[in-house]
């Protein structure tokens, strides 16, 4: 990748941070980033790699599908492209850049290019430092919500995208479009996973 273009995309053109050695390895790492198998509407290739890697780490494939199996990354891209205004979109770009910059400074490369153990370290650190969502009542947050931060926001979006995908909603969670009766006290063992429709 062209150095200047890479710098521009990671939002690092301005400021003294430019000259650190970690930036060099960040740029070198570009070569080994995985190729996307889909064409984003909003994300750049690198941004899509970051998000794809992140949601795969949070919700990996087990004996049930993982985030990438149900195209969580593709859906997040679409939601940002089609429902965010320009300011919101720019904020996401900046946040991804800052996240990757933090990875580069602390671990030597952009998130998607780190080896597995480094990625785990990054996520552990983000879990500790990222804000928490206040509870809500009837769809509205109660109290004053402190800033959430990029990681937890993206994690929340990934979970939403995962749970609302047809694959998970109909086949993994308990799908009950027309419950009929309401049973207010049922042994959990008779249900298993959570209901997919809220």
């Amino acid at each position, binding site marked *: 990748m062209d150095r200047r273009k890479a710098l521009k995309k990671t939002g690092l053109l301005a400021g003294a941070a430019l000259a650190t050695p970690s930036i060099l390895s960040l740029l070198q790492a570009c070569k080994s980033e995985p190729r996307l198998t889909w064409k984003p509407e909003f994300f750049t290739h690198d941004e899509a790699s970051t998000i794809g890697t992140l949601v795969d780490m949070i919700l990996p494939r087990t004996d049930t599908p993982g985030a990438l199996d149900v195209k969580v990354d593709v859906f997040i891209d679409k939601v940002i492209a089609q429902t965010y205004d320009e300011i919101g979109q720019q904020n996401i770009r900046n946040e991804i850049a800052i996240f990757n910059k933090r990875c580069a400074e602390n671990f030597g490369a952009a998130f998607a290019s780190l080896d597995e153990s480094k990625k785990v370290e990054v996520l552990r650190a983000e*879990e500790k430092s990222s804000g928490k969502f206040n509870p809500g009542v009837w769809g509205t947050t109660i109290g004053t919500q402190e800033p959430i931060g990029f990681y937890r926001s993206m994690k929340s979006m990934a979970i939403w995208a995962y749970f609302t995908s047809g694959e998970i909603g109909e086949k993994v969670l308990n799908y009950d479009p027309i419950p009929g009766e309401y049973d207010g006290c049922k042994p959990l063992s008779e249900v298993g996973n959570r209901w997919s429709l809220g």
Partner: protein
Amino acid sequence: MANYNIDAKKELTYDAIVIGSGISGGWAAKELCEKGLKTLVLERGRIVEHVKDYPTMNLDPWDTELRGGLTPEQKKKHQVSMRSNWVGTDTAHFWADDEANPYTEVKPFLWLRGHQMGGRSLLWGKQTYRWSDLDFEANAKDGHGVDWPMRYKDIEPWYTHVEKFAGISGEPLGLPQLPDSHFLPPMELNCVEKHVKSRIEKEFDGRHLIIGRCAHLTVPHNGRGQCQNRNRCSRGCPYGAYFSSNSVTLPAAHATGNLTIRPFSIVQSIIYDDTKGKATGVRIIDAETNEDIEYSAKVIFCNASTLSTTQILLNSKSNRFENGLGNDSGELGHNLMDHTYRVGAMGKVEGFEDKYYKGRRPNGIYIPRYWNIDEKSKNDKFLRGFGYQGGGYRGGNAANIEDFGADYKDSILKPGPWEFFITGFAECLPYHDNQVSLNADVLDKWGQPTLAIDAEFKENEKAANKQIQEDGVEMLEKSGLKDIIGFDNEHPPGYGVHEMGTARMGLDPKTSVLNGFNQVHAAKNVFVTDGACMTSSSCVNPSLTYMAITARAANHAVAELKKMNL
């Protein structure tokens, strides 16, 4: 299903005109049509036929491209209603176009509107509670506002009348402050709600936790199907299991053959004839063609929704009424009320991890008012009272759990922790300076003056909110909940969507706009029976009372017409 008569071209004269087709307008139409009056319902939006025009009623999240997300264009169109957090792709088509219908917030006020046949009866919360004499006597007793020109005994038969037709589910309790309705079987509390109920009722004398009383059918009723517990009500219910004008009253009005409903009809003003000393008709603007048309009728029912009705009255100027139809008292536009909203407490409930529920019950719990109902329950910090709504459910926020990866993913496929919340609704006193006025500086899409809304909650409501939060935390503590949070989102009026007042009923024409049968004091063939007529606000949800008041007034109108008094 109904194939409504929308042809109002040939006939410009009717026995009755009903302005608006929401909860109260639907009832006015049904009662007037069933009593044989040729009735024209003027609806400012489009026709929404039951079932046929509910495009999202069966959609799962994955059936829509953005799974509920709105585009920036949709967000702009619903910039006001979005503040409620209730607008998504599933219901966006039932919320008004905020860009075409601006209003001015002198102080913050959320005005939520539904501009289509059925209005907000498609979107409402469906909680239905009778008012009591504690409410109807409140103004007279503490001196705030003016006395209601009626008492519980006057409206009781009409509660019965509307309940039997609408279908209200609930459990009788025999409480004087919350009279029982004619109930269909109650919905069921879940295990956590039963647990909290037993603890609260044991720990606090005079407090009760009950299943919400609501306009949902728990058994088939009058040809409509029972609730299937899908909780997709506000998209329109294919079973007709909840009360809406579209599923209940307007089909009944249509069945008489006496109903004409004219869509895209924005009422500009009511025409008052100085020589006849009464209203003779209504002037409309066709929302699509901008054509001005006048319709005549012997009686006119205003059911445009609280603030829209008052806007029409203020805009109906004549030599006799220079400041708006029926505004001899100067009270038109004043005494706007709403309930306080989103103040309460929540917490986690332990010990029920092996329990879950089946079905998405579109209803919660209710804790009836317990302060200031007698000498023993007197609270010196605030006047009147509040009730709570809430519920228990398995929730939690999976994103907040500090974990990720395979085990984490498998764990969040299971239901989260049990949580329980209660949120209070406090009565708002009628304050003269909580008001709306016409604003000629801001015009709507059709060149009409808009409303400026200048209202706020004051000390009494704030004191009640404080008590709501304190009591809420205490009740949850005594119920053994963990991680309890008290909250007050300090919402301005409007968020409760129980706007009331601005054309109040009263005994004295000098201090009120309407008489005891909802007739404009000085124009007796004009009736106002939506939320605008309310003299006080109680602390319980008002819609059932609008229904009863409307049925009562409509039957009075018919009787007066027969006596040639109108």
